[in-house]
């Protein structure tokens, strides 16, 4: 067992054996290392000013992961090289991303700039090295807010810098970095602290299971994209933290004939292409799920275990009929995902039990799927309403409907009355379909809050279902959507 957190800074190992379990990486950088180039803009992972890049070896490849250091625990940097904005220039020579930001007038007040530079540095090293288009740049900086420039010069800087071959000092020293990172990768359980206060990162499922049995009061951390806020916003003391990011095999993705099985710590970024392969709406949903930094850290298991009524993956996975695998000690059990969410803040997870995996069925040839989301902002916003619709269609008739919503109740929830009303209807029966859509008012009594009124939530939920039905009935998404049109549908507005 290892008793200290270890990561690289500028090629040299940093070892933390006394750190508080909930020390964030940003506080480590700014307060302990006094590297103040990285900024705190919001301390909740929504502005990206604190973006740093973790260089890791993932699946044999060197990966450059842009993450929000404000809500990342210092321990989550274990095994990586932490790269900050101060590290990019090669002596007096600016990094290509930095130079492009200067050349394109990409900074005004400059406070968000380190975060943008680091996000674009991630893009600079993103595989494949093919030139990104404007949309790709938008996507890479979707987790970064700028209040001065209006983004255009930043996007131009990204396009300029990230086009062509990579030729910075980091590509040059990748071999050495691999060696240094390999030296940190000991495969040992990590445990820093004592019995009452610790940061632990077990290396195997067995270690995790026994540690959590011994400390069922510990907080399990996937990506800390929510737990981070308990620390920075609620000022909670979290004495016992078990980070799942080093558990071997828990991040496995098994893409089978009829299902895809996601380990609990599969990140949203890693899950994205697999979910997109089920349906293009799932791909769009993952893009909108959060900014890149949050998708890179956050996990599929975390989004489920967290139990939020406005998490974006649960409604989609429920509509698809996903099955959850839970484990406590050596005991493994499964249950339909929808049964996991009991009430607000209450899930069917026993003390000492953890989410191990979720199995997502692929669509059968006679099944159609739509996932649609309403929020105040297209990118990086929490849903006001999230609708997921799976219809089994025989000929032109709806043989079966599986419809789940987020943002409409205290938990992600099926629309049973509406499903029943739709079953047996023809897709060519507009009157019947309209009537069925109205049944959503029986299924849900949403609330008013700062994201939307109850009235809008219900109207929006109905509109999204009507849209899904129209599309499954044959209408092109170019006629039904302002954004996020489906692959294959023509692109003209």
């Amino acid at each position: 067992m290892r008793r200290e957190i270890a990561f690289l800074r500028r090629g040299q190992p940093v070892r933390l054996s006394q750190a508080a379990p909930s020390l964030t990486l940003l506080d480590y950088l700014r307060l302990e290392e006094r590297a103040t180039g990285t900024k705190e803009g919001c301390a909740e992972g929504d502005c990206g000013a604190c973006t740093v890049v973790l260089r890791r070896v993932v699946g044999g490849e060197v990966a450059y992961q842009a993450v929000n250091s404000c809500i990342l625990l210092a321990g989550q940097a274990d095994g990586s090289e932490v790269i900050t904005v101060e590290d990019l220039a090669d002596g007096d020579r600016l990094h290509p991303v930095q130079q492009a930001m200067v050349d394109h007038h990409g900074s005004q007040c400059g406070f968000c700039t380190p975060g943008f530079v680091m996000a674009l540095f991630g893009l600079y090293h993103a595989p494949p090295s093919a030139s990104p288009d404007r949309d790709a740049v938008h996507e890479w900086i979707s987790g970064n807010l700028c209040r001065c420039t209006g983004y255009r010069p930043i996007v131009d800087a990204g396009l300029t810098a990230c086009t062509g071959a990579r030729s910075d000092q980091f590509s040059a020293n990748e071999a050495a970095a691999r060696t240094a990172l390999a030296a940190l990768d000991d495969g040992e359980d990590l445990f820093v602290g004592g019995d009452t206060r610790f940061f632990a990162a077990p290396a195997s499922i067995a270690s995790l299971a026994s540690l959590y049995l011994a400390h069922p009061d510990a907080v399990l951390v996937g990506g800390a994209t929510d737990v981070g806020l308990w620390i920075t916003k609620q000022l909670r003391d979290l004495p016992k933290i078990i980070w799942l990011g080093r558990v071997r095999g828990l991040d496995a993705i098994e893409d089978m004939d009829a299902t895809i099985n996601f380990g609990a710590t599969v990140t949203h970024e890693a899950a994205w292409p697999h979910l997109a392969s089920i349906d293009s709406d799932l791909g769009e949903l993952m893009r909108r799920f959060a900014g890149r930094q949050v998708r890179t850290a956050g996990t599929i298991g975390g989004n489920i275990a967290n139990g939020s009524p406005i998490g974006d993956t649960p409604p989609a996975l429920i509509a698809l009929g996903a099955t959850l695998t839970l484990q406590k000690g050596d005991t493994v059990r499964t249950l339909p995902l929808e049964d996991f969410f009991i009430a607000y803040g209450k899930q069917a997870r026993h003390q000492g039990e953890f989410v191990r995996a979720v199995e997502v069925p692929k669509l059968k040839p006679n099944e159609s799927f739509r996932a649609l989301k309403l929020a105040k902002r297209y990118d990086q916003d929490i849903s006001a309403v999230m609708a997921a619709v799976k219809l089994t269609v025989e000929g032109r008739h709806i043989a079966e409907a599986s419809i789940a919503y987020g943002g409409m109740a205290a938990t992600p929830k099926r629309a049973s009355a509406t499903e029943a009303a739709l079953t047996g209807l023809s897709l060519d029966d507009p009157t019947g379909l309209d009537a069925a859509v109205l049944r959503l008012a029986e299924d849900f009594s949403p609330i008013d809050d700062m994201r939307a009124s109850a009235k809008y939530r219900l109207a929006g939920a109905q509109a999204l279902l009507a849209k899904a039905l129209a599309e499954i009935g044959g209408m092109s998404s170019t006629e039904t959507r302002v954004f996020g049109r489906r692959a294959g549908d023509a692109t003209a507005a």
Partner: protein
Amino acid sequence: MRPLPDTNTVNGEATLRVVRRDLPHDSARKHVTGGAAYIDDLREPEGTLHLAIGGAPIARGKLTGLNLTAVRAAPGVVAIITAADIPGTNDVSALGLGDDPLFVDSQISFHGQALFAVAATSRDAARKAALLAKVETETETPNISVEDGLQSGETVLNDYGFVVGDVASALAKSPHRASGTLHIGGQEHFYLEGQIALAIPGEEGDLHIFSSTQHPSEVQHIVAHLLGLPQAAITVEVRRMGGGFGGKESQASAWAAYAALAAHITKHACKMRPDRDADMAMTGKRHDFRVDYDVGFDDSGLILGLDTTLAARCGYSADLSAGVVDRALFHTDNAYYLSDTNILSKRVRTNTVSNTAFRGFGGPQGMMAIERVIDCIAWRLGLDPLDVRMRNYYAPGRDVTPYGQTIEDNVLPELTSQIERSSDYRARRNEITTFNAGSRFLKRGIALVPLKFGISFTAQHLNQGSALVHVYRDGSVHLNHGGTEMGQGLFVKIAQVVAETFGISMPYVKVMATHTAKVPNTSPTAASSGSDINGMAALDAAMAIRNRIAAFAAERYQVDAAHVSFRDDTVIVGNEVIPFPEMVEAAYRARVHLSSTGFYATPKLHWDRDKGHGRPFFYFAYGAACAEVLIDTTTGELRVLRTDLLHDVGRSLNPAIDIGQIEGGFVQGMGWLTGEELVFDDKGRLRTHAPSTYKIPTAFDLPEDFRVALFDNTNREDTIYRSKAVGEPPLMLGIAVFAAIADAIHSLAPGKPVPLNAPATAESILHACSCMVSIR
């Protein structure tokens, strides 16, 4: 010596080598490397204490008990500070009105208002301790919305307005009348660097304060007043802000005051940095407005009479509301001549944060009002709104504003026809009509909206700038002026002016932090005035030194001083070319004074507020935007398809910087009117107090097709190199997006007024769509 190409000889202007060039921001390299230091990045003096504020749990009522025992006992706590600890006056109001207490004494005026501060050995210790107070209150019913305030009749300032001609009879005689109400939401500044100050005690009670403020002199004066010290004992310094947008004009002062008071009491350096949520919950925002209007017009859409009242939610205190709401009135004409009009205002008191300056300073709300009126006229008459706009433009003989200033520099007719052509407005209008006829869920809309923005502080005394320039013996130049750098590129522009004056290249000029001991009694960097007043002051200072060097050179080389010129890092004296540093050294040895202050007072201004008459503005900046949008009429979702901006900056000091202001201002204005929604609950708690709930635009929200151009113009007034102010005006280009959304909704029921309120969130758009259909 390689002279730069003479590319700047347009309009017969003398060759300029530094001014008008696309130079990067003075700190660009430091921004991208993390080397630009903001206040939280400075090394803290040993023993620095960190502050946190304990806030009121109710929006209105009496503070009847404050038990701080647990706070005092919390780990790391060194001191607790309340109103009783203030040696001077418990007021941090910008105008000294006494209505902005630093701490609640007995009356609580908004949710989260400061009751006490904790000073502790770490940031987390202070924040955790602040949560432990036991607060007892007697709750009174708060006024939250503008309507609540109107109903209760409470105001922070007296009603004020312009009355021109006889609006009642003009309305009565009008062939057409339309009336309505428009709600315009507020806006959070969301400067990326939150409020912050670090106060360091010196000798005998002196304080050096690092404050992220647009108005260092005001911080200095307020802290002196609070502590009962002479202003000379307080020094305020700010190198840069991570954004301001008006949010650090008056509202940086309180945070500096907390730090200063704590430093004064504890004799330790004290840092006050609220968390983002506390910052958003405790600081003022753009005023939201309710506008009621009644307009009379003829068949051509010409406005014959307009009676309008603007009710502004000012929050609990006056702050800068006098100027903000006045400026709303000054811009309710926007580009249009109003012959008979009442433009009135109410400055409503509510139990919410005290609303404050925000880029445009009320102007945007005034423009929103008149643009809605214009749209209503077009809808009623079935005319293209652009034609109604142009029909009402100021023109010869119709060129006096409701406040009596004659418009002398109007370029909107040319500017509008240029953008009308370049945006292909008419053809796209037709195309959209066809599209909408065949589209069930989705509708498109387009709008072309002009802007005219008055440049000068309407508080006349603020129209002054000061600078301090030193030339050192090696030729390097030290530049100070009264303006602050918040990202807008002021420092590089003024450095360009000074470099141009001395004929030297930019590396010679070192721009220094704004510092009250270098340049005193400064005006806020606000009202878009930064480069106008400080550029002129810096020019004045640099010219004084240049003239002394020229006189010395003329005497030494026995030529006429008129034959001494400064360029390409040299001084050219007759046939002699002397490197600038050599000439400076020679001048020094000849005992020439190489330092000077500079000063500027904007000419031609006069304003009689009581009579509502005068010339409050030195000149106007103009612009126009054409926006096209696509909306989903069943969900209210919005996509901005294309935007063309054409904006007048006179002759730009730095076109790249100006384009940055235009694009950034537009996007900020678009955000204000679309996704940015402030939600207060009925208890007066702000529910949108972080970026997770308050959504400013991201890169994805940019118009897919975004075209920006500078209008070829000069400034008829003698401003710094004939440039025009650019900080605020482009924000109002965002109004075109709002008008385009209304246009799209209008297609659902042509002829009906569109009840769209701002911000046009999906919910607001859907609501307006539903109303259109249900009243059809």
